[in-house]
């Protein structure tokens, strides 16, 4: 077992973990952050995307031990300041709601996090750039049309976080 110190959504955790434990399993089962789901086992679907020190990673392809010393932001913390508990939404969360960019919602946490990283990198993307930027996140419900609209809307609103 290895001792790690990880900050998740603003809270610091110290845990003993197996070296092979995936970050996504650490988040879901050790920390209880079940807002981040798992959609595949080959890093293709992106459902488990989180921000690690501000950059998006697929948390199924990171070991928990690699996250030692890192600051992780999940869908549960992306709106900041206590997040959902305060009824606060991140502008991309709001844009997804307003543009009906989700149906079953399983890909949504990863898609929102990936979009946040995309807009950090490129605050004013074209539609093609949005599509390319979200290539690593699969959705089976929406056909992506409204996801593109939502990211465009968030970009127009000036989201850069």
């Amino acid at each position, binding site marked *: 077992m290895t001792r790690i110190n990880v900050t998740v959504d603003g809270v610091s955790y110290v845990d003993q973990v197996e070296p092979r434990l995936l970050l996504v399993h650490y988040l879901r089962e050790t920390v209880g952050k079940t807002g981040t789901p798992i959609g595949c086992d080959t890093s293709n679907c992106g459902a488990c995307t989180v921000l690690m020190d501000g950059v998006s990673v697929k948390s199924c392809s990171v070991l928990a031990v690699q996250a030692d010393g890192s600051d992780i932001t999940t*869908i549960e913390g992306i709106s900041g300041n206590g997040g959902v508990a305060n009824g606060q939404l991140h502008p991309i969360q709001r844009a997804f709601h307003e543009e009906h960019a989700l*149906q079953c919602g399983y890909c949504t946490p990863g898609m929102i996090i990936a979009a946040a990283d995309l807009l950090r990198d490129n605050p004013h993307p074209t539609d093609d750039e949005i599509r390319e930027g979200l290539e690593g996140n699969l959705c089976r*419900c929406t056909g992506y049309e409204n996801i593109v609209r939502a990211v465009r809307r968030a970009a127009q609103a000036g989201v850069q976080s």
Partner: protein
Amino acid sequence: MTATEERPATQIGAARLRKEDARLITGQTMWTDNITLPGHLHVAFLRSPFAHARINNVNVSEAKGMPGVVAAFSGADFAAEQGSLPCAWPVTEDILIPAHPAMATDEVRYVGEVVAAVVARDRYAAADAISAIDVDYEPLPPVLDIRTALDEDSPKVHAEGNKSFEWVFANGDIDEAFRDAPVVLERNYRQQRLIPCAMEPRAVVCQPIGDEYTIWSATQIPHVLRFLLAAITGIPEQNLRVIAPDVGGGFGSKLQVTAEEELVLLIARKLGRPVKWTESRSEGNMAVHHGRDQWQRIRIAADRDGRIRGLSVDLLADMGAYLMLVTPGVPLLGAFMFNSIYKMDAYSFRCTGIFTTKMPTDAYRGAGRPEATFAIERIMDDLAAELGIEPLELRERNWIKHEEFPYTTIAGLTYDSGNYEAATAKARELFDYDALRREQAERNASGDPVRLGIGISTFTEMCGLAPSRVLGSLSYGAGGWEHAAIRMLPTGKVEVVTGSSAHGQGHETAWSQIVADQLGVPFEDIRVLHGDTQVAPKGMDTYGSRSLAVGGLALVAACDKVIEKAKVIASAMLESPPQYVEFANGVFHSRAGTGVSKTIQEIALAAFAAHDLPDGVEPSLDSDATYDPDNFSFPHGTHLCATEVDTETGFVKIRSYVAVDDVGVVVNPLIVEGQVHGGLAQGIAQALYEEGVYDDDGNLVTTTLADYLIPSASDLPSYVTSRTESPAANRLGVKGVGEAGTIASTPAVVNAIVDALRPLGVRDVTMPCTPERVWRAISAATASGSSERNGAA
């Protein structure tokens, strides 16, 4: 309300943002895999690596001794109690339905079939112990091609043989229709095997308390699952509670009673402890039922002016290794749709269901209807080319005219409404059809290496499953009704209980809109309850685009009963004879002119207090209703697709896609548009990207999302969607929308590719139309000398 107020006076028709989103966008969702019960154990399954093998021995003793392992089981441990997984659709009297044990006991018949299980303290320990199980297999020959599986010398999947059933339908004199017909075309189309790939993998949790069991499952069908788990295990139905919490997509793949669901229940019963199983994507691709997989032979006879005389269809349908819940019924749902929107003198249909050593097939978005629509729309384009008639014109010459509804088709269905002219006219305009045809001609004339093609799909479908009597006549094992209940709470708020079980469709929002209009209560005051057999005890669940067309009307019926009862109470409160009491917009008043009125919320409180209820009126303001329609629902539409096909690389780019759908009255345009978008994506994916592939030994080679290519945002175009509206013959005027996009789009895309390449002599490209296949089709056509350069069409 001011003149500038955009919101319609009714909730029905309003683009309400979804109630469901609040939890889904914030990570507060309750997926089955999120459920953690005190002391729960994790199950892992060992699956067959062979397509076909005899099991001589399964040794789990080493696995049992591994750290953290609580138990390990082989098929022998369940042989006496597991029964056979159900097939609810025995389509013919002599159908062969082989025994289908949840855990194999003596033989495996597809790669991925469950052979053993380990139960451990955590998922990692369970996975470790799986590799310590020793199975002695004796490989048997696989059966992989349904075109040869009925040959006498073919190996047998089951001792009884490889043929499950043959189902036929005929109407009109088919021989007469083809005899002396000026034009007869015959085509063979391949419907490749698809893997549904809902984003949420399956998961099951079971908590035993005494002899009662609560099962959480990522399922579309909690009610059907409860009934059938009781039937196959013998556990009394009243002791089973099934909960479908938030479910991450289904598309038919979670319309199933699975081996894993039954085994998790049986393991929990054996151990007396809560257990949980979560599937990996690789397991899911192998062992969640697949879709499609047919060889279609279709013949069409026509007059020179394009009038269709007759249509003859002969299907071979791959059942896979066993018949699951509705496996044999899927191709039959297509049987009534090959004739589509067209009039003709005669129609004949034959389907042979054949076993192979592959994962069973079953419902996948559209289930039978995409296959049928593909074949008819593909051959209509070929017929148009053969006759030199513009393909939209050929369709119009044959389709049912809007003034001819209701119309009974050659397949025996009565289409209640439709307007193919209106949908097509709108689609032509949005697509700029004539301009694209001109551009196509120019590029063909100039020999442009990137050709433009225009694909057409004027489709209809039967959905809203459906009339119980009709399902009974088709040997289906259940009814097609739906249930709803309304509970007016003392505070005037409303609980709506529905037997439909949403997994992304937005019923919490749409059902609130319907009830808000019916009862005249605020949208925000309504809470929709579903997906738990203890909370919503009756239902037939969600599939086949049935929830609105059946469940939505059950809501209306339940609201009627609430209003009826409230009227009696209002009559007493208003001191007015009941026949003078009127209800509108949530308020009861008397025409007798007392000038007093009571809101439905006031009536609800009075019914709760029950101080002054009229004689014979029971306290509380609740209702229960079931609705069983007398017909299916028939959405239709015209989809037009423009592709640019690079003849040098075979790469296909969708340049524009216009979908005009007629789904009747729309409850929530936002949700309807979203359903169309997603449906289009899945239909386009079948045309261009997806195929479940088995190798020559029967190994599935597309077990991951790196091999099975579900499209990303960058692989798909932006869509133009619009609607026409011919109301269905039901009280809301609604039809289904869940499958329309998928049914329509596959032939639109392939027709566009073939249309681009027809001048080069290409008549078909087998799906998925990958660059390699397109390039090979061009090369083959060029080599055979049928290209324009050689003067042939």
